[in-house]
């Protein structure tokens, strides 16, 4: 499966001659510009971050938060000299904040939104009931990065344990043990067995 498209460098977004998207007097003014048609290519940048960090958040949700974070930071700090790393930082902050919010919402047992759209990746990948989706997401995102990458590769990208083993350049037994530990962590957290789509015989 091809990875996310690499965004262009976006340097014209910083150039006042080209519109200077990030120059503005208020976060709302900047937001108005950057929300219209995704000129900063936040979409592919968010996809790339989610893949690199093994996150399974809804990309649109991260993008919305990142739009606000970018608009706010551009006004507070001024437009950056180097757009790519600066946007990556905003996206990282946004994803982390969303994960923290989900954790706190789960702790206080806040009601889920009726359509559960935020947690569709969990429902699709693990086959959990919508009512368990947020808890599954919180547990998944509490896993160390290597385990998230492994699990995401298998349940979201549809790759085999053999492919993941090859990519991670680790002994197959080690990969299998990591996968088992990750799945058991999730199962403990949600108090339910996960569906067969988690890897079948590959779980070993």
């Amino acid at each position, binding site marked *: 499966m091809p990875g996310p498209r690499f965004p262009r460098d976006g340097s014209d977004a910083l150039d006042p001659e080209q519109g200077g998207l990030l120059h503005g007097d208020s976060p709302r003014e900047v937001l108005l510009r950057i929300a219209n048609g995704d000129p900063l290519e936040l979409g592919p940048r968010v996809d790339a971050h989610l893949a690199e960090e093994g996150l399974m958040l809804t990309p649109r949700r991260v993008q919305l938060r990142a739009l606000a974070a970018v608009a706010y930071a551009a006004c507070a700090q001024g437009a950056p000299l180097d757009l790519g790393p600066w946007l990556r930082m905003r996206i990282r902050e946004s994803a982390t904040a969303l994960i923290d*919010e989900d954790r706190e919402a789960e702790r206080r047992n806040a009601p889920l939104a009726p359509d559960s759209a935020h947690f569709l990746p969990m429902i699709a990948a693990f086959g959990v009931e919508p009512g368990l989706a947020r808890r599954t997401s919180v547990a998944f995102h509490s896993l160390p990065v290597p385990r998230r990458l492994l699990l995401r590769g298998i349940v979201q990208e549809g790759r085999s344990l053999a492919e993941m083993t090859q990519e991670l350049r680790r002994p197959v037994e080690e990969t299998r043990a990591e996968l088992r530990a990750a799945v058991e962590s999730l199962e403990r957290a949600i108090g339910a067995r996960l569906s067969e789509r988690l890897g079948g015989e590959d779980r070993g």
Partner: protein
Amino acid sequence: MADSEQLVDPELEGLLREFSTRPRSVFLRSSRKDAMRILRSSTNEPLSALAVPDALERELITVHRAELAEILKQACRNKLLKGERERLFVMRYRTANERVEPVPIQGLRDRFALADARNPGEPWAGATDAIERALFPQASAEPSVLELAALGERLVPGDSWRVMTAIDQLANGNVEAVRPLCSAVLDGCADVESSLRALETIAMSEAIKQSPSRALEAQSSACAIKGDYPLGHINLFLFAVDKRTALGAADRLEESIAPDHPLVLELSAASRRRWTGNCGAPRAAARVLANELKPAIGQVGGRLASAF
């Protein structure tokens, strides 16, 4: 061809329409009396954002609130890293190779001034007033980490407030407050960093309470999360109640850090100062063990044991 109005995200149109129509909805008041209750609770609602219907405006409010919370967080860290008692418990190292310096208070004030200037409207007036009071205190009423963290927890609930408060309480002699705060972190699928800090803080509190086996248990759990990390092995060495644990930790330390590494020197000095102040001084059995093992614990272990 669509005109420019039609190209604008409908949610954004809603945002623009609703400019300047918001009621004053955020108002932070956090008394000292309520601070601990707030931090021990896992049911704190973040303020106001959920009441804002438009998606992008809600995100803007959340981002602004997160910036205010980050300023408060840095203010707490500043106190923990610089406080006379606190710095005996908080090392300025995230890892052996990554030193953490407190953000200068002027930097925080500048950042706050920027955030305040970017306040997009009425909803934040109460919050910024409250934070201003916290960051620019009258000399007679400087807010504690506990008060700042309680304010932060109401702005953006999260484990970092609980961990910082636990460390603050530990440093200020309220050892019994540590476990409930840290348990609130560990009971909720915390991220790796927060779990690690919570377990280390429990370990230190148990050591101070003269419960070395519990201290060792908590630190071992931290090491299981983080894997090999020098501070973990230093703590295992200091909390060790048996030869095997002490020698194992000493061996790992010898492989992973130099005896004159600033982390080793600062931690030895801080331990000595704590113990001199009668705060969690090692029991006689631990001193005997350290003395007995002296020839076998290497240079790093020897340096740490000298604090005994």
